[in-house]
């Protein structure tokens, strides 16, 4: 692995080591219309040395992403005009506090590389991975021809992609999520910039894939890159960060070595983030299930056609859910969890096997007969916004879902801790956490016996996630709901569920009480999932 070039890391005037990033008094404000401004960052100080990984953590809205963008001169991109001022904003020894757009363009991709969360959206589907990775070299005229190809392949290899000459010719859709993220990292390191800014680089990835990307970041750090990691994932922080900067409402409220911030946080913001992490077993364990099963799947199989031939998304799955039971379904993406959830909901028909509801046919019954009983088995979808008609207000959505009148709507909103006024809002104007609460309220509208939740918290930050998980636990206790919780996060499942099934390649590879599986995993897939869970104190 190459060490970053050009920038020596030594201050020429003093001979002292100088940081790759040195920010003092960074303020960012956005135009809020009618001449007013909204301050987002109130004087942030930040340094990153070569070979150091600094993590910036904070709740949603703390200003993390604005900070990341400001460090690339992109604060004003996409939306309101930004006013950026700083006493000092030095990148690789060059002060950019008053740099022009032109000067920033020379810096971006060369002195600082950016890796974004959305790997699919950041790669042009019509261009090869090689062309995307080579772009910084082309823009800055750093290498051409065979040399450019060689550097691209080196960068791909450094980013941990196998067979660079093959990958270089592929397009983003031919790569998995983790490989796309690695390709993005490759495009950021191809010019060997002294500083890499990573904005939530692992949030969209499976736990096991994320671990691989984090190991890659650790290697880059050891090779001398300065890393600024923006994240709300404290597990990622624990794995790679040397120092942590805690951001709260646009101010740095705490900073220090990662180990000490994570074990003995001094600020309320850091304590809040740590307390919100899902950890430990379910607070109120349930008695052993008794009585007949509520929802039962026998020999379930579902086949999807693909260009490479039919594949079994779900194969030979037996599953039993008792009244009031909370069942977790974990596995990596593509393991068949979501398909299993859809089979249990009778959203799809199994190609073999049968799902029964309270002992009567469910998957085998005609839709006309199922319609009335759908009130009993409800879905909380992965993407709550997509599941809401954009032309309908929250109140109308709840009425459509089965709320009898306006007072029922208010009661439902109250049960998920939302204000009555939320009924008049349009789904798009709600925050991620509010949308998920509305989705849960909607599922509760018909007083169901079973809730199927498909990754209900994977898109939310830890504090919002903790609120939703608490809500689910309370609802389950109060209403005696049976839950099927599909998640890639074992910690979330452990916190919420009594029993768990682990899926891999469409099959259930391990099942049992959550605490037993947590303490004594038997299958390699379960062990890998556990190993990927954040190793926090």
């Amino acid at each position, binding site marked *: 692995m190459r060490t970053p070039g050009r920038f020596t890391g030594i201050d020429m005037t003093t001979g002292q080591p100088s940081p790759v990033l040195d920010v003092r008094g960074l303020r960012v404000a956005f135009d809020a219309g009618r001449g007013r401004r909204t301050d987002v960052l109130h004087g942030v100080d930040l340094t990153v040395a070569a070979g150091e990984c600094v993590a910036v953590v904070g709740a949603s809205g703390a200003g993390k992403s604005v900070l990341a963008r400001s460090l690339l001169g992109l604060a004003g991109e996409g939306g309101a005009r930004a006013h950026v001022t700083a006493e000092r904003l030095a990148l690789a020894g060059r002060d950019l506090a008053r740099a022009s757009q032109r000067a920033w363009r020379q810096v971006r991709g060369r002195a600082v590389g950016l890796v974004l969360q959305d790997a699919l959206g950041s790669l042009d589907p019509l261009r090869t991975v090689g062309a995307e990775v080579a772009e910084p070299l082309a823009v800055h005229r750093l290498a051409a021809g065979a040399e450019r190809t060689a550097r691209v392949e080196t960068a791909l290899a450094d980013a941990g992609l196998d067979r660079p000459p093959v990958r270089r010719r592929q397009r983003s859709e031919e790569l998995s999520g983790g490989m796309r993220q690695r390709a993005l990292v490759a495009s950021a390191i191809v010019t060997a910039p002294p500083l890499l800014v990573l904005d939530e680089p692992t949030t969209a990835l499976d736990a096991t894939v994320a671990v691989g990307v984090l190991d890659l970041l650790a290697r880059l750090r050891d090779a001398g890159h300065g890393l600024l990691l923006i994240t709300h994932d404290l597990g990622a922080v624990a794995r790679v960060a040397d120092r942590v900067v805690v951001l709260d409402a646009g101010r740095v409220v705490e900073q220090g070595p990662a180990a000490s911030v994570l074990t003995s946080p001094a600020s309320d913001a850091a304590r809040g983030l740590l307390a919100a992490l899902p950890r430990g077993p379910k607070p109120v364990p349930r008695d052993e299930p008794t009585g007949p099963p509520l929802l039962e799947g026998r020999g379930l199989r579902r086949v999807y056609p693909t260009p490479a031939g039919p594949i079994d998304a779900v194969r030979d799955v037996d599953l039993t859910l008792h009244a009031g039971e909370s069942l977790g379904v974990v596995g990596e993406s593509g393991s068949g969890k979501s398909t299993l959830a859809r089979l249990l*909901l009778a*959203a799809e028909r199994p190609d073999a096997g049968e799902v029964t509801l309270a002992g009567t046919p469910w998957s085998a019954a005609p839709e006309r007969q*199922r*319609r*009335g*009983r*759908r*009130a009993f088995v*409800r*879905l909380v*979808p992965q*993407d709550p916004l*997509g*599941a*809401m*008609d*954009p*032309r309908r207000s929250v109140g109308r959505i709840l009425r*459509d*879902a*089965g709320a009898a009148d306006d007072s029922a709507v208010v009661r439902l909103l109250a049960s998920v801790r939302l204000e009555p006024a939320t009924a008049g809002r*349009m789904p798009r104007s709600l925050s991620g956490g509010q949308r998920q609460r509305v989705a849960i309220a*909607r599922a509760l509208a*018909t007083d169901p016996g079973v809730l199927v939740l498909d990754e209900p918290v994977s898109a939310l930050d830890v504090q919002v996630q903790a609120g939703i998980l608490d809500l689910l636990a309370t609802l389950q206790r109060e209403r005696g709901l049976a839950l099927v919780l599909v998640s890639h996060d074992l910690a979330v499942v452990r916190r919420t569920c009594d029993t768990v099934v682990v899926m891999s390649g469409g099959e259930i590879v391990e099942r049992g009480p959550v605490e037993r599986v947590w303490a004594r995993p038997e299958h390699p897939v379960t062990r890998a999932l556990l190993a990927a869970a954040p190793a926090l104190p």
Partner: protein
Amino acid sequence: MRARLLGVAGWAALAVVVLLLLAVAAPDLLAPGDPDATDVTASLHPPGWGHPLGTDELGRDVWTRVVHGARSSLGVGLVATTIGVAIALVLGLAAGLGPRWLSTVVARIVEILYAFPTLVLALLLVAVRGPGLAASVLAVGIATAPGYARILRARVRGVAVSGYVTAARLEGAGWWRRLTRHVLPNTLWPLVVVVTLGIGQAVVWVAGLGFLGLGALPPAAEWGAMLNAGRVYLTTAWWLSVGPGLAITVTAAALTVLGRALGRVSPS
């Protein structure tokens, strides 16, 4: 909120459209005279007092004829678009919601219609029915249908598999309820925008056919036919062409601006 979003241009366009609709509904309010009344003593008067847009070779007031012509020109645009949308609704919804074989058949029909030049279609209809408004309206209607049908088919398909329609199905909503509550509203609103743009286009088309003598026949006050009649006097009496020409331009522009403004305001 929405009022501000429509913008100055949007509101101006809306005002023009309201005026046009008034000219269609009650032309006598804007121009009380008889559009076909001839007055040989006042032939070919340039625009001036009493004749804001001048008079033609038979002494007919151009302003009065333009206002009364709105009914046939704009009305014809509306009727043609209605025909087009009606055909498109049948084709698009059948293709979007029906079985795969039907979708394929409809797609082929739409492609054939697309490939067929409007002018040839108009000539064909004129040959069958004789020249007149009916033939040109039908021709423009049929010619615009495939465009709308394609938009509808794509949109219906997208909405039908969307998360919220799936959610409604899993809530136990039946086929009819999903169609009327979710699929149609979310499909038709984007179409409203396109249709507003399309009416302006249809007006230009019908006027064009009128100019070629394939639409309304003289002495009918129709903008395209008026343009055609004024063509002979273009060097001596320019106002004969400017009046109906402006009317066509302003109508098409107003509908286009309004359509775009609506497009910005509409919740997609």
